[in-house]
């Protein structure tokens, strides 16, 4: 017998089981739709409480160069030192290399880069010159709100400056005031003439994702865990139905059978991912980013789930209990879903969850998929892919060691 015959048979068994199909395909589709439509606010609601945002400021200007705006109390620091802003943003000045390094290590959620000559350009724009300059904001959009909040604040700052430039008449008033004033909306039309830009650069030229992307990924990555539980009973069922004895008499070794069944779990994961991602693509017109990276993430996730499924399968067989798969589906998968960010985005959960998610197949896959959707290079998804391969390898190794332990009474 060939391994592919075992794979085909096990897949046929699962795919002919209506209950299993509802569980691994229909339920996630329903949840993707419901959560995407109902929890979109999570991706937009500014009232969500967040931790203090660590921001690095790279200022390419000397103290002397900053002076013109310091006199006007119109530097970015005047804004960042505002008491209300300080409640949410903790900034520090760093050099570019150090800032990029700390951003890479996620010690900063965002890096603000003030270009050389920024202060003098802004000051000259107050006197009718129209020289262009820009503040650069670098961050991780998938870590969500933090970068968006910094972006909004810097945006507000530049808007204020533009307003000032737009109406020289009020400069004197402004000079007299200690705080920024509110400006008339009628000045908006003049803003276009002035060229103080704010450039947002998501690290790796990232784009933002919406709730449809997030929950398509998150729910898919959660429900694939149930396939591990489903596959967990494969071997014990053969044993209890006595088909295992029959296969043994037919000369099918247990190793070959195990290989076939593990591969069947892997194939089921691929089928499940394909169905759910195709559904999301068609239903919400989503673009999954670099297709090769996408497949790499999907394969790594499937391998990870296969490892867990194989371990559950061997545990069930060795102990003669279906509880392993059942308990994993009832508790394990739910826990992974919570920790890994399948229910609620990690960005709105305490920091602990972001670390813990690195030990869950779904958490790793969600981070990798969202990075890829945002246009991150392979290097950024690679650690998550490796993480899932490691989970798969470790669980497979534990399972195989357990499986190798002979019972002694079998021929």
């Amino acid at each position, binding site marked *: 017998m060939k391994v592919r015959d075992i794979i085909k*048979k096990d897949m046929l068994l699962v795919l002919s089981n209506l209950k299993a199909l509802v569980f691994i395909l229909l339920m996630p589709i329903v949840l993707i739709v419901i959560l995407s439509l109902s929890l979109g606010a999570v991706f937009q609601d500014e009232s969500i409480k967040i931790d203090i945002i660590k921001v690095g400021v790279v200022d390419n200007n000397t103290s002397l160069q900053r002076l013109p705006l310091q006199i006007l109390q119109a530097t970015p620091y005047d804004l960042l030192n505002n008491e209300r802003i300080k409640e949410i943003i903790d900034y520090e000045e760093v050099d570019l290399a150090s800032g990029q390094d700390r951003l890479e290590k996620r010690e900063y959620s965002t890096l603000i880069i003030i270009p050389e000559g920024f202060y003098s350009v802004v000051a000259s724009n107050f006197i009718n010159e129209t020289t262009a300059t820009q503040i650069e904001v670098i961050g991780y959009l998938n870590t969500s709100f933090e970068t968006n909040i910094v972006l909004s604040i810097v945006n507000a700052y530049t808007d204020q400056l533009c307003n000032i430039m737009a109406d020289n008449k009020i400069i004197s008033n402004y000079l007299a005031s200690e705080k920024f004033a509110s400006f008339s909306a009628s000045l908006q039309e003049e803003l276009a003439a002035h060229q103080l830009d704010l450039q947002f650069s998501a690290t790796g030229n990232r784009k933002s994702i919406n709730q449809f992307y997030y929950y398509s990924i998150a729910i898919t990555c959660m429900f694939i865990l149930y396939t591990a539980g489903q596959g967990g009973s494969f071997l014990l069922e053969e044993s209890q139905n006595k088909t295992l004895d029959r296969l043994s008499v037919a000369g099918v070794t247990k190793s070959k059978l195990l290989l076939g069944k593990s591969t069947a779990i892997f194939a089921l994961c691929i089928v499940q991912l394909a169905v759910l991602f195709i559904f999301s693509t068609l239903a919400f017109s989503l673009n999954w980013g670099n297709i090769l990276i996408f497949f790499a993430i999907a394969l790594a996730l499937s391998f990870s789930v296969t490892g867990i499924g194989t371990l559950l399968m061997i545990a069930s067989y060795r102990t003669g209990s279906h509880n392993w798969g059942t308990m994993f589906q009832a508790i394990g998968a739910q826990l992974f879903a919570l920790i890994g960010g399948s229910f609620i985005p990690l960005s709105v959960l305490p920091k602990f969850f972001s670390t813990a998610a690195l030990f869950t197949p779904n958490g790793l896959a969600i981070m990798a998929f969202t990075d890829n959707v945002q246009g991150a290079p392979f290097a950024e998804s690679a650690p998550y892919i490796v993480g899932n391969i490691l989970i798969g390898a470790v669980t497979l190794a534990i399972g195989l060691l357990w499986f190798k332990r002979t019972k002694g009474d079998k021929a």
Partner: protein
Amino acid sequence: MALLEVKGLKKYYKDIKAVDDISFSVEKGDLFGLLGPNGAGKSTAISLVATLLAPLAGSITYKGVDILSSPAIMRNSLGLVPQEIALYPNLSGWDNLAFWGKAYGLRGAKLNDRIAEVADLIGIKDRLKDKVKKYSGGMQRRLNIGVALLHKPEFLIMDEATVGIDPQSRSYILETVKGLAQNGATIIYTSHYIEEVEALCNKVCIMDKGKIIASGSKEQLIAGVGADYKITIKTDGQSELLLERLKELPCVKAADATGNELHLLAKGEEASGSAILAAIAENGFRLISYDVEKPNLETVFLRLTGRALRD
């Protein structure tokens, strides 16, 4: 040389002696019955022969080769029909046969041909596309047998193949087994149904509490325990003289009368029959009925163990 030779086989589970020092041999073409009550050790014995379990002690040779060290020699020739319905109920009959055919190395046209032949043999060809869980119990049993026949095994082990099915399906299965034996298959048939073993098997081994308590042909077993025929005769009259005359016959071991009915225990059916009928005629009585209850394997088991097989 016997096709299968089992010597001193033992298999214990903690304190339970499931198989306790049994020996038997099966010749090519035998339809070998393994008879015994539930828990007698039949299934354990055949699991040992099928290489599914390793014995505590003893040897099993198939075609002269020790199957404990070379299980492949047995596995390549064996078709196993387990007591349980060892099928995939959510797959169709065809999918089941195809899967098991591939397990035995059949592929392509050869596989399709065998599926068609076996489906015809077991009478399910019209239902091949249906899921097995929709089959009746009898059909599932037949498919359970069919799966073991796909690769045309030389040696077939059937463990309680007719448990829990309707008389019609049972009859179908028994006819199938007879047909297989007539075509040269060697079969070990375990059952606790005496009538099945009596009807099918040319050799019988009776097991009880892990041991073989008797073996041989049915006739040898009955003769071995000296079982008697029970004869009940009804005549149009009765006399002490007739009763005495019957008691004097050498084939009659005991005689008793109730009204017009005579109850005799005789040694053999044919020899005693003519002598008894002659005695009735000589005494001027007319025979109304003559019933003979033959000794069977139940009688043998009863004689050997002191209890009925299905107790």
